C-alpha cells in the first residue's frame, strides 16, 4: 500500500503534469499549424477587439441571451467551472505538498471554503448527469463518453472530500483521489475537456466573424 501511495504521489504526479502540459501545447500547436495549412483565413479574420468582446460576454454570468434563458444552468455552470479550477489550485493540503516538494507556495483558501467548493463541483456533476438523462435534447447527443468524462471530473472531488473527512477506507480513497486527479489532468488535452484550451479560440474566431465582418453581436 505504501509503495502504491509513493508511486502515485511521486512519479505519477510528474507524468500526469507532463502529459497535461505537453498535451495542451501539442494540441494547440498542431491545431494552429493545421489551421495555417487548411484554413489560413482564420488568421486573417481574427480581430482581437471583437474576439475579446465575445469572450468577455460569454465569461460574464448572464452575459448572453441563452444564459438568461437558462438561469439555473447558467448558475450551475459558472459555479462549477469556478470551483473546478479554484478548489484544487488553492487547496491548503495541495499547497503544502507542493511546498514540500518544490519549495514554492501561493495563496490558499480556507478548508471550509474548499469543502463548499468541492460539494459544489460534485452537486454540479450530479446536475449535469440528471440533465443528461432527463432532457431529451441532451440525451439525444449523449454517448458513453459523456458519462465517462463526467465521472472522471467528479471522481477526484468525491474522493478528495472522502479522504479529508476521513470516512471509512480513507486510505484507499486517498490513493484513488490522487490517481483520479492525475487521470483527469492527463485527459484534459485529449478529450472534450480540451474545450478549456480551445474555448478562447473558437469563441474569439466567431466573435471576430460576427463583429468585424458582419457587424453583429454574437451573444
Amino acid at each position: 500500500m505504501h509503495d502504491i501511495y509513493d508511486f502515485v504521489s511521486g512519479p505519477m504526479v510528474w507524468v500526469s503534469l507532463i502529459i497535461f502540459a505537453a498535451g495542451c501545447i501539442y494540441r494547440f500547436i498542431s491545431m494552429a499549424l493545421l489551421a495555417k495549412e487548411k484554413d489560413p483565413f482564420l488568421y486573417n479574420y481574427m480581430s482581437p477587439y471583437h474576439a475579446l468582446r465575445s469572450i468577455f460576454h460569454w465569461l460574464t454570468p448572464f452575459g448572453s441571451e441563452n444564459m438568461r434563458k437558462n438561469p439555473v444552468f447558467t448558475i450551475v455552470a459558472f459555479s462549477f467551472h469556478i470551483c473546478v479550477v479554484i478548489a484544487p489550485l488553492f487547496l491548503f493540503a495541495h499547497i503544502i505538498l507542493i511546498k514540500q516538494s518544490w519549495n514554492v507556495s501561493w495563496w490558499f483558501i480556507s478548508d471550509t471554503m474548499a469543502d463548499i467548493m468541492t460539494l459544489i463541483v460534485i452537486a454540479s456533476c450530479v446536475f449535469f448527469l440528471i440533465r443528461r438523462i432527463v432532457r431529451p435534447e441532451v440525451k439525444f447527443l449523449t454517448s458513453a463518453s459523456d458519462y465517462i468524462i463526467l465521472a472522471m471530473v467528479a471522481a477526484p472531488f468525491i474522493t478528495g472530500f472522502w479522504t479529508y473527512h476521513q470516512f471509512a477506507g480513507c486510505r484507499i480513497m486517498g490513493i484513488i483521489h490522487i490517481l483520479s486527479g492525475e487521470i483527469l489532468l492527463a485527459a484534459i488535452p485529449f478529450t472534450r475537456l480540451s474545450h478549456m484550451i480551445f474555448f478562447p479560440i473558437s469563441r474569439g474566431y466567431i466573435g471576430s466573424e460576427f463583429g468585424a465582418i458582419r457587424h453583429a453581436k454574437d451573444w
Partner: protein
Amino acid sequence: MAESVKNAAAEITDAGIVGGAAKLTPEKIEKVINNVLKAEGGARLKTYVDICAHCGLCSEACHFYLSHDNDPKFSPAGKVKQTVWEIIKKKGRVDVEFIKRASEIASTECNLCRRCVMYCPFGIDIAYLLLTVRRICHKLGITPQYIQDTAHSHSATANQMWVKEDEWIDSLMWQEDEARAEIPDLRIPLEKEGADIFYSVIGPEPKFRAQLIYQAAVIMHVAGMNWTMPATPGWDNSDMCMFTGDFEMMARLKKIHFESAARLKVKKIVMGECGHAFRSVHDVGNRALSWKMPPIPVIHAIEFYYELIRDGKIKIAKKFDKPVTFHDPCNTVRGRGLHEMGRYVANATCETLIEMHPNREHNYCCGAGGGVINCGPPYKMSRIDGDKIKAEQLAAVKAKGAQTIIAPCHNCHGGLEDLIHHHKLDMNIKFLGDIIYETMEKPE
C-alpha cells in the same frame, strides 16, 4: 437513432437524391467523404467536433426544433450528430441510405440561418458544419433536384433563372418604358462606364418581379443617383451554388459579378433586397476568391435606402398609414447588423412600427433561406411545418395590430407567404422598396 434514420429515409422521393443515390456505392461514398474531410475540413471542423460539450444549449435557437415540439432530431447539434459525427466516427464508411438522409437533413432541415451560432457557448458554427455535409452531397451528386436545377442555371447562364442575355436587356427596357409613363425622363442606364453605383439584383427579379426594377429605377432617379446595370451576365448577384456546396461555381459567379462591376469602373455595388445574395457577395464569395473583404464596396439595399433618407435625397410625402412590423432577414442582421438601419427606414416611411418578438439579431428565420425553399415542392410542407414557431410569432404581432410585414429579402417573402397562407394569417408582405416607392415625393 439508426431506426429513425431508416424510417425517414424510406420516405425520400426527391428525384435528385434518389437518382443520385442509385449511382452510389459505399466505396465511392467513403472516398468522397474522406477527400472532403482531408482536403477541406481543416482545423475548424475538427475543433468544432472535438470541443462540442454535447450540452444541447443550441437547441432552443433552432426554429425546426421549436416547431417540432422540441424533437431533438431537429436540434442544431442533433442534426450534426446525425450527419457529421456519424461520418467522422465511421471514417466515411456510411451506407447509401445514410447519405441520402444526410443530404435531406443538411439541405432541407437547416436554413443555415446561424441563429444557433449565437446560442452555443463555444460559438460552434453549426451552419458551417451542415454546409460541409452539403458539400459532400454535392460531390456525391445527391443534391435535391430543384435546387440543383438552379445551380445548373447558374453554371449555364450565370443567373439563377435561365434568363437569356437578350431577355435580361428586354426586361430592363420594358421596365424603363413602363416607368417613363410615370416619369418621362427616367432612364435605366445600361453599361454606363464610370457610374457611381452598380446596381445588381437576383434572377427572379426580371423573371417574376420586374416591377421591383421599375421601383428601384424610380428611387435612383428621384435621388439623383449616377447608377448603372450591366447588359452582360454578371447582373445576377444571387448564388444557389453557395448553398449546394458547389464552391467552385460559387467562386466563378462572384467573379463574374465583381468583374462586371470592375469593368464598368463603378465606385460601389448596391444590391437589391435579397439576403442570401448579399451573404454570397459580401461574406462568402469574396473569400472563395481570396479577397478578405469585397474588392469593391458592397452595400445592401437596406443600407442604401437608409443613406438616401438620412441625407434627404428621398423625401417622404405621406407615411404609410397601416401598422407594419419588421422581419429581420438572417442574412442582413446576423449577416450584417442592418437591423437599426432597417428600422430607421421603416420609421421614416411608416406611421406605426410594431415589433415582433424575438427581433433584430435574434429574429426567427422565415424557413425559406439557405436554399431550403429552392428545394421545391417535395419539401414545401416540411418547410412550413418546420417553422410553425415563425407563424406563431407573426400571429402574435398581428394580434397587436400589425397588418403588413416589411421583409427586405426575396427569400423571406417566399417563406413568409407560404406560412401566412398555410396558417390563414391574412397579412401582406412588402419590401422596403415597395414602401419607399409608395410614400416618397415624386416629380409631378
